[in-house]
């Protein structure tokens, strides 16, 4: 066996394009996130548009290393502004669970052994909105507890509590649906 060991490569300078790549990559996930907060896809698109306009005005390097978290934070603030102005704002005390009206009879045991994604999403949709938000930030958008804390202004402990509560409930709900 022979393996030539080439010298270390000289890496060229990284090409520009950070903004458009960020836009292309994050526009849809941000819109999905904002739509969940607002319950309205059109308003969500406006909120995301505003966030990117704001990003363009940032000094180069100001959001370096945390641009995705920054965008989610700005979108959240903007969405809450919209909700306040429209009188749709709901606030939850830390750890408080909103009572969600039952959508109907509890899903029965007709699920197949192999779970479907749609079933899990339905279970997530039954969670209180504050739990849904942190679940999606964590498991859909990959943010850490600290980042979720900064985005939502909740304490790290409360983020953990909400996620723990939600995961516990989802585990139980899913187990109950298994034959």
């Amino acid at each position, binding site marked *: *066996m022979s*393996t*030539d*060991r*080439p*010298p*270390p*490569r000289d*890496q*060229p*300078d*990284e*090409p*520009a*394009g*950070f*903004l*458009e*790549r960020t*836009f*292309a*990559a*994050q*526009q*849809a*996930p941000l*819109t999905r996130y904002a*739509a969940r907060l607002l319950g309205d*896809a*059109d308003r*969500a*698109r*406006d909120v995301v*548009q505003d966030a990117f*306009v704001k990003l*363009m*005005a*940032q*000094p*180069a*390097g100001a959001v*370096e*290393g*945390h*641009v*995705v978290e920054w965008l989610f934070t700005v979108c959240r603030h903007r969405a809450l502004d919209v909700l306040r102005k429209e009188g749709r704002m709901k606030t939850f005390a830390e750890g408080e669970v909103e009572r969600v009206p039952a959508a109907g009879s509890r899903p029965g045991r007709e699920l197949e052994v*192999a*779970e479907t*994604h749609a079933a*899990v*999403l339905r279970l*997530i949709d039954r969670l209180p909105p504050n739990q849904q938000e942190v679940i*999606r930030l964590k*498991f*859909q958008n*990959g943010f*850490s507890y600290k980042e979720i804390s900064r985005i939502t202004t909740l304490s790290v402990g409360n983020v953990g509590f909400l996620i723990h509560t939600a*995961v516990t409930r989802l*585990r139980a709900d*899913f187990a109950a649906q298994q034959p």
Partner: protein
Amino acid sequence: MDEAGCAAIEARLRDDPAARAAVEEIRATAARLEAALAAEPLPAVAAPARVLRPSEGRLLRWPRIYYLAGTLAAACFAVVVVVHQTRLPEREKSVAAPVRPKIEANVRVLEAKAAPAARMTMAANAPAAGENTERAEDSAHRNAVNQNAPEAKTMASQLAAGSMAMASTPKHRPMGDQTMAFVRAADHPRAAFSIEVDTSSYATVRESIAHGKRPAGETVRIGELLNTFHYGYPPPSAGEAFAASLEVAAAPWAPEHRLVWIGLNARVAGEPGATVARDVQLQVAFNPAHVATYRLIADGDGRLSMNAMADGRDSGDEFTSGETVTVLYEIVPVRAMTPAGEAEHGQLLTFRVNYREPGAGGPQHREFPLPDRGGSFAAASADFKFAAAVAGFGMVLRDSPFKGTATLAKVEDWTLPGVGAEFGDEREAFVALVRRAQPLVP
């Protein structure tokens, strides 16, 4: 959590099957959530040219800078949009063609024998009859953030300077510090990945550390770091287009987990860049009897579909002369290691390569089953340990939730067997980088 706390928890898990089961159930729930949420459709979004247009019926108040940025952005967007093709650095290899990789390896299985380190090099099995190839999902070509960006007051002025060309239909994966989740093998026993691997992350990470800064998490793409380095892959057997090297051992940051390595290297053809195989598709079938969950260690490369099922189309990926691809997977076994550290885990997976010969060749495939004999990390090969160190380095920099007990000091220790004159300067440079990074990571 500090290292002592992590060690205490790991010890508790080793001694408490009930606790271990509870943790695995939580992990399985988390993987289920991630899978379902990843599959949730993304909403329709406006084309780039419409982004800065006020929405219907709403008057936006535009500060003056926004007017300027909007005007200039609209001018740029009026130009015909072309697909933004990233220029990737060419790998300096003695016979290699430029590598165009896209890290999308979901599964990476390595098996280390308990005996003195001897990586299993798989000879090709007899070809089967032509079968439909499976198309691996495309992954993103991505460039790290240019930390040496030209001087610009704001990003708006960068846009106005015409340095950007919007992709019309971006196909690359989302950026961001996406951590690869564990996937339940019972739910998703099969995974596919592309042969293409980018290697641009290492330069960005190196640049940050050289300037005394901890690299931004989103710039640390572990799959790319892994493929920056060269490994001692043996040449393919006579007449074969490629060879596969597989190794499995305990993960050094989580000894109850198995770390699996799959390496693929193309034969050296007559001239650099010559195609030795086309329409290459790389697939792994996990054995749910022995694999509870698995995780691709390619954090930062975006989420991958865990069910990149065959659609009958050819991948279009080519394997060129001297090219290699290296992937790592972390596996949670169905049966934990015994306290003695010697448990046979059975056949973990089968690695399969679908491809066509250059020219008008028909579909072919090779399969490489991988048994796990419970080898320890200490018994693994030097290359395996170095690769694990690179992965650990990336996870520590990203503060990955799956870094286990990894620290940069331990990463440095893991590299040592794989560093020396025979391995070239690049690995010694990596060790120096790890040392320099240690003060930057609390």
